[in-house]
């Protein structure tokens, strides 16, 4: 309906939705109608606003902020898991006399931390201050604990892998009198990296869960299981690529266990979450990554089960598993960063848990309070 000649210049009305949706992080259509109706005060221009009561936000703007973590952190989540699980594989191989698997697993662990640590440093706002991470050891900070775990792990893995490289090259590293020292240190160093391997693979889940980011926070009970499973299947996959099938038997078993754990844990995690918190894991680019991660993990697991004794099938399955793990990590990271963009994911679960506590009779723990009497 046109009231004046200038009304034709007005942009078309946005479609009426039941619920306010953001448009490019800008004000919502519903809000715009409010303003229009109220601003003119004639009451005749726009429609009623009853539909808006179910949820209100401040112009659809985010409530919490996601950490400024980009692709280097996703890469680190992946290779950190690979490193931790590879150290465990290496330890098992050393104990059961599988020299090729032991060597390859230890070299993989070193390569993984050699990629992951620079990635972590690169993502800092002030990379030149990375050593400030080691100023304190702080149990309330998963990042602090993780840095110490990574430092200890990398030291152990470095020494163990150096010994492997020396052996591989036929003792041609210019070590001189240090060679016996390296031989002596090899065992304890490998033990350090073995002990810290599982914590290295698991702590990143706590790092993500210990935030106000709705999707990560909602996933905090299941995410450690997803991450250790993903680490196990990735390290096993890489071992299946690098190691002859005769010695890769345990890697194949671990790969299948990892796939089962990963698929199960991911489903259970998503189911236990508030639908709004789980949504970013299932939709958009992150959802696509996670769907592919599941497909590749299952495919890799099936290939391992059926054709793991064929070198080529084992290598192909291993590559699928490693890719699946990388996709899982990038998908989870991306889903969290996506989840803060819509304030509903923060507001509605919080409002619901608040109302639930009130309904159960707990009324003294709300941040919003009326007068005391």
């Amino acid at each position, binding site marked *: 309906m046109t009231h004046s000649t200038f009304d034709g210049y007005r942009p078309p009305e946005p479609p009426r939705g039941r619920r306010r949706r953001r448009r490019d992080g800008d004000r919502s259509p519903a809000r715009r109608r*409010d303003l229009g109706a109220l601003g003119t*005060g004639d009451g005749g221009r726009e429609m009623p606003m009853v539909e808006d009561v179910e*949820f209100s*936000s*401040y*112009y659809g703007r*985010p*409530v*919490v*902020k*996601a*950490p400024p*973590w980009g692709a280097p952190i996703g890469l680190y989540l992946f290779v950190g898991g690979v490193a931790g699980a590879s150290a*465990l594989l290496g330890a098992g191989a050393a104990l*059961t006399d599988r020299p090729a698997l032991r060597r390859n697993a230890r070299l993989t662990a070193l390569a993984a931390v050699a990629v992951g640590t620079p990635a972590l440093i690169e*993502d*800092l*706002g*002030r990379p030149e*201050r990375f050593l*400030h*991470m080691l*100023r*304190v050891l702080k*149990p*309330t900070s*998963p*990042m602090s604990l993780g840095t110490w775990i990574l430092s200890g792990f990398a030291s152990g893995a470095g020494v163990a892998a150096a010994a492997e490289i020396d052996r591989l090259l036929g003792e041609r590293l210019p070590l001189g009198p240090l060679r016996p020292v390296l031989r002596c240190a090899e065992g304890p160093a490998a033990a350090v990296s073995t002990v810290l391997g*599982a914590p290295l693979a698991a702590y990143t889940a*706590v790092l993500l*869960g210990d*935030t*106000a980011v709705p999707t*990560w926070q909602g996933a*905090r*009970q299941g995410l*450690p*299981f997803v991450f*250790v499973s993903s*680490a*196990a299947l990735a390290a096993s996959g890489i071992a299946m690529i690098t190691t002859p099938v005769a010695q890769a*038997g*345990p890697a194949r*078993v671990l790969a299948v*266990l990892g796939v089962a*754990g990963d698929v199960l844990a991911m489903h259970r995690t998503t189911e236990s979450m508030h639908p709004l918190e789980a949504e970013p894991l299932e939709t958009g680019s992150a959802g696509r990554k996670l769907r592919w991660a599941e497909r590749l993990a299952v495919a890799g697991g099936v290939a391992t089960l059926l054709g793991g004794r064929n070198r080529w099938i084992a290598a192909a399955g291993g590559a699928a598993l490693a890719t699946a793990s990388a996709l899982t990590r990038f998908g989870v990271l991306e889903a969290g960063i996506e989840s803060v963009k819509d304030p509903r994911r923060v507001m509605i679960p*919080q*409002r619901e848990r*608040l109302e639930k506590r*009130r309904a159960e009779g707990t009324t*003294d*723990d*709300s*941040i*919003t*309070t*009326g*007068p*005391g*009497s």
Partner: protein
Amino acid sequence: MGPLSEHEDPGAGSGWGHSHERKGFFTDTSICIGCKACEVACKEWNRNPQDGDLEILGSSYDNTGSLGANTWRHVAFIEQDQERIEQARESGRRLVGLGMPGIGPKPGAEAPSGAGGCGSGCGAGAPTGTDGEPGTGDRTPPDTPEFRWLMSSDVCKHCTRAGCLDVCPTGALMRTEFGTVVVQSDICNGCGTCVGGCPFGVIERRDDGTISAKGDRGRVEQDVPHHGTANKCTLCYDRLVDGQTPACAQTCPTTSIRFGDRADMVDEAESRVRQLHDRGMTEARLYGANGNDGVGGTGSVFLLLDEPEVYGLPPDPQVPTAQLPAMFRTAGIAAAGMIAATALAFLGGRR
């Protein structure tokens, strides 16, 4: 439980040898006029760089957007109609008697004696314009206006249990002797963990050094101090150590932003909300005054006139680290499972 459960006076619990009173803000949004003097004073005193590209955001008179690395005070503007005001009044009425047991007079006790404590600002925002005698018990709602503006100056909450402080891996974030939370910008290495740790979305890493001036004047380099580090309100730490008032509170022309000992701020807030309720403005409520809430109470207490969501504040924020022991337990079980699976693989693989 150590650093995970700090009590009401976090400054004293943080190892400061001498004791200062915990300082805080009381932001009474019922008398805020939205002049943004606090934003300007904050920017000037703290030399915070320009935020964004000087766009018109299309959200009433708010073109600042949100709190962030370069914006430590943010004035929100909300426009509401009669229906929404009535809903706010109703939701505020339901809060009466809920929460804060033991704080303020008990039910049936003499009504507020501290009404005089709120200074000349009292009543400036009352739509009735009457100087209704507080405590008469007459809670008949005043005539509901057809329209209102809500204006609220948001700021870092300086939580009793601060998520950013807990998760900081370098020790750059610290608890001051005034019970506030401050980033030491020469220590912070910009890891960004605190950004996700804040349940209010306050702290942020200061990144880009270039801005584009309005229109097509191209990119402009500006001086960005402490780039790449996390930044947020310091409650003007540098002024506090000299016994001064934070810039925003000192400049606020309506005393909407008040600064003082945190306990006094909570008392003032309590008497003010009681006074407004006695006038029938039951939409008034406090935000952050409850020490039992998910962040242990905030150093910056607010008086709001609608649900916190309306102002972009979370309705039930909880410090993420409260769940940390449970998360470590879960991660420990997962790690043990991983070791067990590996052991199983090697035992089963031995053929």
